[in-house]
């Protein structure tokens, strides 16, 4: 299937939203370029997990990562890491699915917030693509294993967000090691907790975020992104101990 790509400047188009809403998307419009990407299959997947019950959001996230892992991640990285590709896919091929699933996108604000959201760490597709890529790169032994780590990523989404925010931590081995450590040491709930006794840190600092930040501060004196699990665990414990007391 050919996905026609949007042209530069499509974010500023005055008509894109109206045309999408009224089902008038036309490949001849100036907001399209002449280029395409060809893919064998382009199955639907959830693209937004910002609203709803926790259990539902989790199911949606896992579903999205699995679909992207299976059908999209084999494309070259310059395609699946480019927001324009995903925006083009949604605009040209997913309208019916999206309107039914996210009826709020008929409002212009939500359209830009959900469909054409900037492709960075706050974008759910971006999160899912990176998660899928790490899962693929980690060469896990079975789909059960893969599912386990997708679950772990979702359960520790706050930490995951911080990992993908810092480019130095973007490698599959580091992520898998860190998730293992969180599981082995039962850090998940501690990492999510707000730090209350340190007003100097700002109002929404959490233990997990600070741990990742401490690892970042120490880099490259301490090369935590490339450490073996046990060494990394020591660094994580050390970083956590700066903020967290057991009792």
């Amino acid at each position, binding site marked *: 299937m050919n996905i026609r*790509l949007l042209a*530069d400047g499509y974010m500023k188009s*005055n008509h894109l939203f*109206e045309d999408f809403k009224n089902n008038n998307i036309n490949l001849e419009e100036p907001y399209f*370029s002449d*280029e395409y990407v060809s893919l064998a299959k382009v199955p639907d997947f959830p693209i937004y997990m910002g609203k709803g019950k*926790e259990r539902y959001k989790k199911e949606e996230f896992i579903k999205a990562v699995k679909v992207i892992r299976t059908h999209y991640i084999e494309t070259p*990285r*310059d395609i699946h*890491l*480019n927001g*324009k590709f995903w925006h083009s896919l949604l605009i040209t091929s997913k309208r019916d699915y999206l309107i039914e699933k996210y009826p709020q996108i008929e409002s*212009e604000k939500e359209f830009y917030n959900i469909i054409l959201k900037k492709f960075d760490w706050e974008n759910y597709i971006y999160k899912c693509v990176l998660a899928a890529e790490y899962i693929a*790169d980690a060469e896990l032994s079975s789909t059960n294993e893969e599912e386990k780590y997708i679950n772990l990523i979702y359960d520790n989404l706050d930490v995951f967000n911080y990992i993908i925010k*810092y*480019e*130095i931590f*973007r*490698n*599959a*081995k580091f992520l898998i090691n860190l998730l293992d450590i969180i599981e082995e040491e039962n850090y998940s709930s501690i990492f999510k907790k707000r730090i209350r006794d340190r007003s*100097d840190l700002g*109002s929404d600092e959490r233990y997990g975020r600070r741990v990742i*930040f401490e*690892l*970042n*501060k*120490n*880099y*490259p*004196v*301490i090369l935590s*992104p*490339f450490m073996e699990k046990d060494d990394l665990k020591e660094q994580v414990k050390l970083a956590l101990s*700066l903020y967290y007391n057991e009792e």
Partner: protein
Amino acid sequence: MKNNDFQFAKIEYIENTTFDGSLDSFYEKGIEGTIRENIQNSIDAKLDNEEKVKIEIVLGKIGKSDLPGIDEVFKHIDSMEGKNEYTVEKIQYMQSKKEENSINVLTIEDLNTKGLSGAKNGQSGRSEDTFGSYAYRKGFHNRNENEEAEISRGGSHGIGKISNNAVSDINLMYFANCDGIGEKHVGGSIHLIEHRYEDQYYRSTGYFSRKNYEDNRLYPFENLGYSKIFNKDNRGLKIIIPYLREEFTDFKKIVQAVCDNFFVAILNEKVEVEIIDKTQNTDMVINKESLVEIINDKKYYENNKPNIKKVFTPLYVQTLQEIGTPEKLIVESLNETYEFDLYFKYDEELPVGRVGIVRSMGMKIVDYKVERYIRRPYNAVLIGGPKEDGFLKSMENESHTQISSDNIKDSNSKKNAKKFLRNLTTQMQKIIDESINRNSVSSGELDTSHILSELDSTFSKNLSRSSEKVQIDSKTELLKKKPKERRKSRKGVVDPQPGKKKQKRIPRKLKPGTEEQQGYEALILPNSSVERISLNDKEIIKFDFNNIEESKNWKECDITFVVVDGMGQEHQNEARLTDNYMLIKDAASNDTYTFNDYKINNVKIKNNTSIINLIKHSSIKDTLKYLYKIEVRINDL
């Protein structure tokens, strides 16, 4: 401890285990929702005289013991049991507030208003006893469908009062009332979930009141012997919201909420609002004169026209002031004719156009988008009379952000509203078109020479611009940007040291931040000017100021250890000097310096250098990378 300040009705068993749904929807509207509801009520309750309504909004702190019945409240809070994740989390959050002693509080007091009447009759159920309705009437906001009706009513106190509970961490609010004959009473309410306390089940809402067991009714307490914050000496109403959520204590947002919603009422001198933030010692009066200053103040409003795309208040105010006499705009529905005042202005610089639709009492309802004309360069304000108000109200959605026929249930009225909206849209489109035609040049050829187009940009070229990520452990091919070859500009000129450029490092001067003390100059020392030696028990750092021209007269400076993280970002408050070092001394005189986690104070400079010894705590290994920020008093420069 007496246990009868708050009255919760007894019930036989627990049926509903969730919080009132409207708490959440009002919470989402933020402090703006609360400000809007209260000021609207105050304007509606204006006394019949020439004076304007005055409102005083105060942000402050109080002690827990200033709140009557608070211990009893927390006993009930402690006894709640959540049945789902969300409720459990919310209950824990409320319970965690028990130990707090310095409590955020917001008060909203009105003057030259009627206040509530009939306090003495308590929970009478009679509609003329507005005190009773305000304090005890339930049912308005129990269901969402009623909430809609509730919001659109308008006209008397008792509307949207749950918005006051919704911005409190523990859903608690009090009020103090002074009526026309000088009677002073207090009331209040808290919204919990149904709960069991000491073997008795209770309803979710508690009222700060006294219960008369003879007629089984609630009666308010007289305002005697309470903390100062409950004082209400002149006729009117004062709302007291303790445990105001931290995120809502933003002075600026309150100022904006007042201006955004009530600019018409303020310009018409119907109301004047004073906002006082006692925690920051700031104070602002918003009236006809100061409103213009506020909308021109970059601190509060984006007022560069090409950037105004979301908040249109500065434009509305300008439009109202520039267009002295409005046009009449007549819009017909199926069976009625509505007449509005339209203030319309064409302005080429504006990227988007909106019509601010305003109720006759001066509160804005919506930034109305004219269909298909959203991005036309105009701005307008539309104000009706009481008849128009009523009709518009019926079309408002619950958050007042939209008017639409979808918000009407009855099918005839719905058709009627649809017709009205269609006519309004067509009329506005016509007006906008005319203004554009009047204002644009329509003769001659278009000069397109300034438009440059580049046709050969390709997808992959654009990709190479996007940032690359570091991927270490992967089989997939890495994309790398090829370094561009640089041709030498002139032949015969040979780079003296190819590859290695020696550049004199110049200290980087920092702009004085707004929070930074005035009278200081700050700069970052280049790494080449700092030498650091680490020994077993101490470190020695030498700062060399010889490269800095102004440094000759320097006698002392403060040195901040700026942490550089793995991404190259600088952080001023992230060093941990107190964890790492016991003492920091001057190497020559052995005098000790005072220091906190990231800054050493008053370091002496001699002969353009400073040498300091840092005595380590045992076994500490510092793994951080620093830049050194030097701050010098400007007199020394």
